[in-house]
């Protein structure tokens, strides 16, 4: 049993129904061949980073599926190539971490976890910063003030003496 993921960009000029139909053809195609569809992700209309076929936006679809053999991938890609409605596609085989990641993402764990991490780190850092200077600063500054001038003065005071002696 292998897990795959096919992402493709559908031409946005088509009507909404046609776009959905395009995605549905590939879902049907996969189920016909004997794959189990895990999830169909409609990522919606997105701006492209660079123009493809003179289009600056596209409708993204991502189908995650699992199959016993990898033989169907060739046929799937061939039909995607031939389809004029599909601007770009990418098929990827997922490892166990990828499967887990997608599962977590669907359940909404990933997004929230990331935000929490960021928030936690952001909130943790200021606290550390706040704590650090309060506790350390007075301790650090006091000896520095006391010691540093003494250190600076000492060589200055000694140096001329040495020169004078010589």
């Amino acid at each position, binding site marked *: 049993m292998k897990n795959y993921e096919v*992402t493709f*960009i559908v031409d946005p000029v088509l009507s909404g129904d046609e776009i959905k139909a395009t995605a549905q053809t590939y879902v049907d195609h996969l189920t016909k061949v004997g794959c189990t569809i895990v999830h169909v992700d409609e*990522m919606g209309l*997105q701006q*492209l*980073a*660079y123009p*493809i076929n003179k289009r600056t936006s*596209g409708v*993204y679809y*991502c189908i995650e599926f699992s199959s016993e053999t990898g033989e169907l991938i060739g046929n799937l890609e061939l039909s995607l190539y031939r389809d004029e409605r599909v601007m*770009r596609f*990418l098929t*990827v085989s997922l*490892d166990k*971490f*990828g499967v*887990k*990641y997608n599962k977590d*993402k669907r359940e909404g764990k990933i997004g929230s976890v990331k935000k929490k*991490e960021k928030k936690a780190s952001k909130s943790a850092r200021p606290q550390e910063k706040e704590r650090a200077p309060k506790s350390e600063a007075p301790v650090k500054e006091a000896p*520095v*003030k006391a010691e*540093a*001038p003494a250190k*600076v*003065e000492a060589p200055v005071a000694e140096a001329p003496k040495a020169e004078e002696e010589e």
Partner: protein
Amino acid sequence: MASRDDIKFLSNPNIGQKRQKYCRFRKFGIKYIDYKDPDFLLQFVNEQGKVLPRRITGNSLKYQRKVATAVKRSRHLAMMPYVTDLLK
């Protein structure tokens, strides 16, 4: 004239200190890098959209390779640009 109390160090003592680099994937236990998440991948790319070296990001070799493939995949899907200026 500045008094002697104001002069603590002749040079900034923090200049020579190196901040310890670490691999964020190892540290936070991230095992899979999603190519469909361009906002995340933007951290590993410079202004022109080139992949940053390990020397700067601090990634371990294993995850640097994964980052690189993820960036390439997301470029293919037009989620990230191949070449630009002022990406960030």
